[in-house]
C-alpha cells in the first residue's frame, strides 16, 4: 500500500512515519506515540489502535497478542478545563492570596 496512506487521522500520521519510528527502534504503541504523536488526538487512538499494532507486527514479526494497546489516561474523552476545575473557587483564591504584592488589599472571597 502507498506509504503516504493516513493511519491516525486525528494527528495525520501516515504509514511511512510509523515505519520510520519502528526503524528508529520503536517497538510498542507508546514508543510510536512519543515519537510521532500518533494516537494523541481527540479520539485517543480509538481508530488507529489496531492499525498501528498490525503495522508493528508486520514490521517486527512480534505476534499481535504481545503488542499492547497504548497507555490510557484521564480525563477520558475531551473535557473542558472548566468542567474539571468546577465552580468552587476555593483553591483558586489561595493562589490570588499568595501573589498579592505588599500593600495591596487582599479580598477574601466568601464561598
Amino acid at each position, binding site marked *: 500500500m502507498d506509504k503516504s496512506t493516513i493511519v491516525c487521522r486525528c494527528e495525520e500520521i501516515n504509514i511511512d512515519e510509523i515505519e520510520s519510528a519502528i526503524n528508529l527502534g520503536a517497538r510498542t504503541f507508546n514508543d510510536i506515540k512519543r515519537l510521532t504523536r500518533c494516537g494523541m488526538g481527540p479520539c485517543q487512538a480509538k481508530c488507529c489502535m489496531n492499525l498501528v499494532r498490525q503495522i508493528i507486527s508486520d514490521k517486527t514479526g512480534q505476534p499481535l497478542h504481545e503488542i499492547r494497546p497504548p497507555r490510557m489516561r*484521564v*480525563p*477520558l474523552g475531551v473535557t473542558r478545563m472548566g468542567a474539571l476545575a468546577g*465552580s468552587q473557587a476555593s483553591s483558586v483564591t489561595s493562589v490570588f492570596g499568595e501573589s498579592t504584592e505588599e500593600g495591596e488589599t487582599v479580598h477574601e472571597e466568601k464561598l
Partner: protein
Amino acid sequence: MNTDLLIVGGGPAGLNAAYKAASNGLKTTVIDRWFTLGGQLNQQTQFYNNLPQHFENQRGYQLANYLIDRLRKLDVKILENHKMIGAYNNGSIGVTDGKSTFQVQAANVIMTTGAMEEPDIFPGWTLPGVMTAGAAQILINRERVLPGKRALILGSNNFALEVARQLNDCGVAVKGIVESRNELLSQNDELLCEVDIPVLLDSAIERAIGKGEVEKVYVNTDGIESVYDVDLICIAKGMTPIFEPFEIMSCDLTYQEKLGGWLPKYDSRFETTSPSVYIAGNAAGITNIGGILLTGEIAAASILEKSNAANSLKIEEEKKYLWGELYRIESAENPSALDARLDVIRNFHHETGIQLPVYLDSVFGGLTNG
C-alpha cells in the same frame, strides 16, 4: 453522591443490568454520555428472532424502548449527558456533565462501555464518503439522511450484510460487497438472497479518489483492476471492545482475537481483577444481542448475590438459567466467541485458584476436560 451500584453506559447491557439490580432493591444509578438511553440499539431496525426466553422477539429500536420504559418505572437515578472521565485515589468515579465534575462513591460498578467499529485503510480512506457501516446505519435510521447514492461495502460479516440490505431498502444502489477472502464471512447469506447485490471475493479496495469526496474506487480482484463509480464506501471490518475506563480502574487486560482483541479479564460473575468492578455487553467480548443482554443480567445477579440483596438459592437458580441461555444463544450464533469467553473465565479462575461454580460444570464441561 453515593450509590449501591453505578452503571456506566445505558445501552442494552447496562439497562438490563440496572433493571435486575433495581427491581431487587439496590440503589442504582445509570450514566450515559449520550442524551438518550438505548445505545446502539436505537438504530437497529432489524428483527431479533433469538432473544433470551424471558424477552419477546422484536426489532432493535423496539427493544431499546422496552428496556428504557421498564427501567423508568423503577426508582433508578438516570443521568443522561454524563460521562465517566476518571477515577479518584479513594476509589470513587469522576463523572462530568460538561459543566462540572463530581465524585460518585459506588459500592459496585458495572461498566458496559460497548465496542467500537474498526476501520480498514486504503489510499483515500479519509475522503468524505468513506465511513463505517455503523455510521451509515445511524445516518439512515436515526438521522434520516442518505449517506450516498451508490455504495460499496468493504467486509462481509453479518453486520456488513445487514447494513447493505438496509441501504438497499433506502434506495441506495449497493454496487458490491468487497471481501478479501474467498468466501463470505457471514453464514447468514440469506440476507443477500432478498436483494440483488454483487459479491466481490478475493478483492480489495486499492484506492478511492475524488475532488473533496469519493467519486471513483479502484477494486483489485485477483490482480484484475475494475473501477466503480460510487460516492459511498462503508467499512465493516469488525468491532473491538472499549476498555479505556477499565484501564483507569486498574483492571488487568487480556488478548482474545475471537472476542475482538484486548479486553479486561473477568471471572464467571463478570467481575474484573479490580474488586467490585464488573463488566458486561460487548466490552466483555464482541457478541450478539442475546449475549449483551444476558451478560448484563448475570453481572447484576452476581452483585445481588454478594450484597445479600436477594435469596441466594433463588439467585443461583436464576444464574443457572441465564448461563444456560447464554450458552444456547452464543453456541448457536457465535460459537468461536463463546469458546474464547469461556477461555477468559477459565484462565481467571485458574490464576486466582477460585473454583468455578458447580452449576457451570455443564457449560464448561467440554473445555475443562480438554
